[in-house]
Structures are given as C-alpha cells and as structure tokens.
C-alpha cells in the first residue's frame, strides 16, 4: 500500500508513519506542503491514501484537496488537522475529503480512522465494479 503524507511538520509525518507501519507493509511518500504534494502525486502514481494537514505554507491542505479532486475522485483523503470547528469540517468534506481527524489524536484513533476509510473506499470500488 502506498500512502502520501502531507504535513509541514516532519515530526508529525514521522508519528503518522510509525503509527501506520503497525498496520502492515506500507510505502510512504512525503510532502511538506500542498505544492510538494502535487509534485509527489505526479511522480508516484498509484497512491492508495492521502493524509493531509490543513495549515501549511505555499499551498494549504484545503486547496490541495480541491486540486486533487479536479482529476481524482476516488483516492481516499483524510484531513488530519488542528482545525476543529464544525464549519471547517464541513468545508473539508465539501472539498472532497473522506474522513477527518482532529489533533490531538491518539495513534489508535488514527489507525481506526485510516482502516475505516480504506474499508469504505474498498467497498465503494467493489460496488462500482
């Protein structure tokens, strides 16, 4: 499985990496902002999941999600952010994220959300086929 981690904090990306490694064999692609993420998506086809922070320099996570959804409607995206207001969650869902994790989160909570999201995405693909 290939997962794209987009967060300007390397510490946070490491936390996400180590947490998700416990779920099995995972290949990670990392980006420090939205622009880097777009480049990474082009360079690494076949990404299975994206974990995206909201507040980042150069291009924020919300803009990134909008840009990704212009071309790709299916790859699951989880917004993983400190933005906890309901309006922000709704904005993100409207932009096309599949799930939303508010910081602070426990590793278990993150693993659960990732597994839920992947299972749901798999179910949707199966239903479409």
């Amino acid at each position: 499985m290939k997962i794209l981690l987009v967060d300007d904090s390397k510490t946070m990306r490491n936390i996400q990496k180590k947490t998700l490694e416990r779920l099995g064999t995972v290949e990670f692609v990392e980006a420090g902002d939205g622009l880097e993420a777009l480049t990474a998506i082009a360079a690494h086809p076949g990404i299975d999941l994206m974990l995206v922070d909201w507040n980042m320099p150069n291009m924020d996570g919300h803009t990134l999600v909008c840009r990704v959804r212009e071309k790709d409607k299916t790859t699951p995206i989880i917004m993983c952010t400190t933005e906890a207001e309901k309006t922000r969650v709704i904005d993100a869902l409207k932009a096309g994220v599949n799930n939303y994790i508010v910081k602070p989160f426990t590793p278990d909570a993150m693993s659960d959300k990732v597994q839920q999201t992947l299972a749901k995405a798999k179910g949707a693909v199966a239903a479409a086929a």
Partner: protein
Amino acid sequence: MQTDTENQVHHAIELLVEHEAGEEHSHYDRSNFLFVEAGQPIAKLAADAEHLIGLSLKNVNRTPEGMFVATVAGCLKADHAHLWVEPGLRVAGNVDFSSGNVEYKGDVCVIGNVVDLFKVNATGAVTIAGTIEAAEVSAGTDLTAKGGIAGREKGICRANGKLTAKYISGATVEVGGDVQVLDEVSHARLVCGGRLKVTHRTIVASHITANGGVECANLGAPGAGAKTIIEVGVDAQVRKLAQVTFPAVQRMRHKAAQVRLSIEPLMRDQKKLTVAQRERATELLYQADEIEQEANDKDKALRDAFERAQAKRSTEIVVGGKLFAGTIVRLGELEQTIDNTADGPLTITLRDHEGTQQIALVQTHSGSTRFIGGRPVRDPEMDAMRQQFSKAA
C-alpha cells in the same frame, strides 16, 4: 598485512579483496582470512594475462570482462593453481597469532586449538577439533569441542544451539539447547536451556543450571572440596532476561503514565487548545503510546522465552553411578544438600509426601524411595514469571 593467500596467488590474476584497513587492531584482532559475500568481485585478470592456463575455480564465476565473482559467501582462498571460496571458514591450525581472532558470518571449523585469550565468534555452527583453552568461543547455532574445554577459570563458551564436548573444565558455558559431555564437568559454571548429559563420568565442583534436567554417571565427589550445585527446572538465561526486563518494563510503563498525566489537563478541554498545543499534545500522546508499545514488546519477548523454557523444563536428575554426600541439589523451588552417599542408578525428583512436595531419591531398579525434604529457594524472577505468564494464571 601480506597473507598466504596473496603470496601464493596465480600470476595471471590480481585479487581485489583486501584486509580491512583503518583503525589499529591488536595482534589478536589481525585476521589472516579474506571474507567475501556472494556476488562480490574478488579478482580480475592481470593486464598482461590473456590466458589462465591451469587455474581451477570453485564457487567462483569468471565474467566475459575478465572479472572473478564469488558465487557463495565464505572465505576466499587462492594458490598457484586454484581460486576458490569455501562456504564455511576452515582454520587449518590453531586460532592463535597466526590466524588472529576469528569473526565469521557462517560456520567455522578449527582443526587445531583455540589458544589462551583468542576469540572465535560465528553466526553459524562452530567445530573445534582441538581444545578450547582460556579463550572465548561463541556459536550462533551449535558448538562442538571435540578436544574438550579447558578454560583454566577464564574460558567462556556460548552456543545458541547444542553443545557437544569431550569435557568441560574451568570454564563458564552458556548454552541455549542441550549439552552432551563425554567425560567430566569440573570447576565449571554451566547454564543449559535444555538437558545436560554427562555420559561416562562425573559432574564435580561445578555449578550447573539445566532447565531440561541432568543425566550423569557420578555426581559430586568424596570429601570436602569445592561444592557441586545442580539446579534443574530453571532456565538461567530466561531468569537473567527477567532480571533486566521486569524493571525496564516497569520503568517504561511508569514513564508512559507520567506522559499521559502531563497531557490530561490539556485533553480535558480540547476546545481551548491553541494550534501549537494540539500539535504538542499529539506528539506526547504518540510518545506515551510508543513507550507503552516498547514495554509490551519486551514483556512479550520475555513471555515467549519463558514459555519456550517451560516446554523443555524437567526437574529430574538421573545418576547412573554414585551420588556423593555434600552435593547440593535444587529442583524447581526446593533445595537440599545430599546427606549420605548413595549408589545408583537413581533419580532425584520431586514427589508429594505427607501433604508437601519434597525431594525424593528413587532407586531405578527397586523403585524404593527415600524422601530428603527440601528447603524453599527464593527465586523472585522465576516466581514473578510463573505468576504472570503461566497459562493457568
């Protein structure tokens, strides 16, 4: 350093493998062996040598470009007519100043002795055709000491698998599996994860801990010499692991709890948290989780080791010849000093007698049993493991 290999090599080839340069080694560390990995280029055709008449290759391929590549990992050998890689390392003589210490990924066979102060360390099996003197030998799997172990109180031998030795004298020996000794075990500290068999002679003046029980011809010696202590049904290596693991796990869990406690005020009212506090709280939650995970992993490793040891556990000592007075026997949690010399064959075992468990001497032929009581031995680590890990618990 010039080696025999380099001196004798065929004139038409040039070796590409050199001894490791860099930091100064002691004379003991100067190895005379060239170790190569599978696929490693080991030699090339000399510029002026178009033909290689009479050079035979073994475990080596020659490429069209004139390179020689090892097909297996091992020890590179060359002489005037041959270039080959031995899959295991064979030391033709002693491990001494002529060979240096031996450090090898794979099996090692030493035709001579391992002399005082030298070391042999291999990830595979180690066979010493001669004697292991006051040296240090470690085998990743089995260790065979055909000429015996004469450690003169300084020798140290370790094997993760089995040990077979002619005799063991004056050495500290730690073995994960079974131990078979043909002659005598004397003045030794022997820790054995499996069963110890001393088939022909005596265990004397030694401290033995054998998880899988002991079989020997004679046990102890007449007169008041150095004590013979035989402890069975206990895995000393697991006990040692428990001594390190229990306090470490406790420390880690305490630390994880402290970290969680430090975030608790923040987590109570998350709406008031700043962005920086949210990021930091996530980091701390992860840190606590990681410490907890590490503690769980250590705990599981200890539990697995304990369960493996339990599967091999036996609290029986079988004596074929004589059991001498003065020998101290520890079976599980009971200890006793043998009061009278007894003739075998007999088995020292645990039996229920008058409502308590006691140490008993059972004669093999007649079946007659003599109970010799037993004082409880304090063994906090083993007790703690039994309490925490026993399936019944």
